[in-house]
């Protein structure tokens, strides 16, 4: 046995484990940067073939995205600030207690009446007292929120800074994509070089296609939801549309979240209850168009997983790491599954097993 080689391999493995532990807090941001890189890569590659260096292509694309975001912010944020100020002014009124303000909201008022009727019917359960106590606790928690923000400003700012690092990570991943790939491949022994190349290509294709398809689907659902909710007359249609597009990524559960938020907004804003039916129908229509036209056209057959496995994976993802893991667990499991099947096929073809 070659002891020097064994010891060297062990040192390398140890260094890899230590690096993984050391950089583990950044892994989620690196993953997000990878998603962004996969989404932008076709445009950068297209520019590269037009003689634009990759680094310049990334910068051009970043400027375009920043321009679009600035336009969106300049157009919609003043209105959001105005409404936010109105809400704050309402809360800072001294003639009514915060609890009374909350109880005065149409949705809470109708709930309060319902509980009051129930309490009259079944007085032994003290439902009204319990409901009032629950509301008071909720108001206290809301009141504590600014204090919570102030006392945790350091971790919040730290997280915000890391989120801002995502485009920077993505810049390096995009501009040095081929160099990174070559460097990784140079570590692979000759015997496994071709098979690794096949697997890398498979991952690249699967993940790239899936991420681009899912982001395009999100965009399509977001635009369609905004459009139909605007027609129905639901306030904040753009914000709800954006949330509906974003949550649509969570299979089976996600599509209902956008509709639920629309219903809540209608209830809170005091619109006529009939609007709930219209908004529900509008979101149902969006889902039908998405399920039968957008999804098959954009995502097609990129992912074949049994619905039960998808639901179990989403639930396990949420248990394991919250919303982010809910979003990434399905493509991750699918990728590992397809990678293992490709590995088994190629290991046989290269007569390694």
């Amino acid at each position, binding site marked *: 046995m070659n002891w020097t080689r064994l010891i060297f391999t062990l040192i390398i493995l140890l260094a890899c484990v230590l690096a993984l532990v050391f950089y583990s807090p950044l892994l989620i941001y690196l993953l997000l940067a990878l998603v962004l890189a996969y989404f932008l890569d076709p445009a950068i*590659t*297209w520019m*590269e*073939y037009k*003689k634009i*260096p990759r680094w*310049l292509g990334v910068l051009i694309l970043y400027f375009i995205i920043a321009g679009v975001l600035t336009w969106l912010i300049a157009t919609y944020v003043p209105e959001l600030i105005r409404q936010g100020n109105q809400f704050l002014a309402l809360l800072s009124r001294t003639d009514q207690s915060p609890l009374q303000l909350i109880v005065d909201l149409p949705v809470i008022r109708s709930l309060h009446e319902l509980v009051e009727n129930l309490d009259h019917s079944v007085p032994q359960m003290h439902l009204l007292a319990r409901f009032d106590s629950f509301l008071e606790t909720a108001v206290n928690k809301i009141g504590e929120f600014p204090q919570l923000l102030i006392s945790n400003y350091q971790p919040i700012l730290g997280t915000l800074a890391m989120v801002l690092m995502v485009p920077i990570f993505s810049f390096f991943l995009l501009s040095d994509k*081929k*160099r990174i790939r*070559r460097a990784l*491949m*140079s570590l692979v022994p*000759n015997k496994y*070089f*071709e*098979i690794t*190349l*096949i697997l890398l*290509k498979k991952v690249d294709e699967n993940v790239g296609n899936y991420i681009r398809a899912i982001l395009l689907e999100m965009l399509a659902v977001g635009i369609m939801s905004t459009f139909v909710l605007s027609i129905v007359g639901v306030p904040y249609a753009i914000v709800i549309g954006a949330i509906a597009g974003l949550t649509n990524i969570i299979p089976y559960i996600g599509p209902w979240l956008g509709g639920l938020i629309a219903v809540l907004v209608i209830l809170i804003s005091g619109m006529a209850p009939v609007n709930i039916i219209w908004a529900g129908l509008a979101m149902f229509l969006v889902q039908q168009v998405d399920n039968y036209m957008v999804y098959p056209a954009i995502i097609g057959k990129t992912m074949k997983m049994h619905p039960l496995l998808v639901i179990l994976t989403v639930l396990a993802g949420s248990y394991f790491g919250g919303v982010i893991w809910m979003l990434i667990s399905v493509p991750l499991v699918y990728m590992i599954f397809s990678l293992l099947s490709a590995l088994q096929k*190629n290991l046989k*073809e*290269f*007569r390694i097993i």
Partner: protein
Amino acid sequence: MKEVAMAPRFLLWFKRLFVSPDLHKDLLKYSLFKELNAHQRKIMASFLHEREFKAGESIFEANYPLEVIYFIESGEMELTPILAADGNTVLKKHQFVGVLDLFSEKKRLNSANARTDLKLRALSEKDFQELIAKDPALGVKLLKACCCFLSDFIAEHSRQNRS
């Protein structure tokens, strides 16, 4: 005077940011790449992986799936059974292997071993196809070079059969 001299130097520096120097002239020595311009060579080089094999080491075996075209940078490679039409089993510097198999059954027709220490450049078959699809001008040049290579191979083979 100094300011006047600075301007062209600045322009040159600015130009260099966008037009990188031709670092891949050596690719012209391969018949497959001899028609490529500097930009196309730069793109091609970004897809090439450098590999080193020790003398006697197996590079690939017959009936393996075809995934890579190998370009010999230095050293000698021995093929079994015979690949070249002239009966030569040894490939040397600036020759390549895998192009013939690319147009057949996507399986290796031969086995290859390093006869001496070998330095190779490897181009993935999928990257090769992608290059052809994404840059038609580059694709035409590569396919033209492939046709020339195949026609030379067939001509040599016919000549050998006649004699």
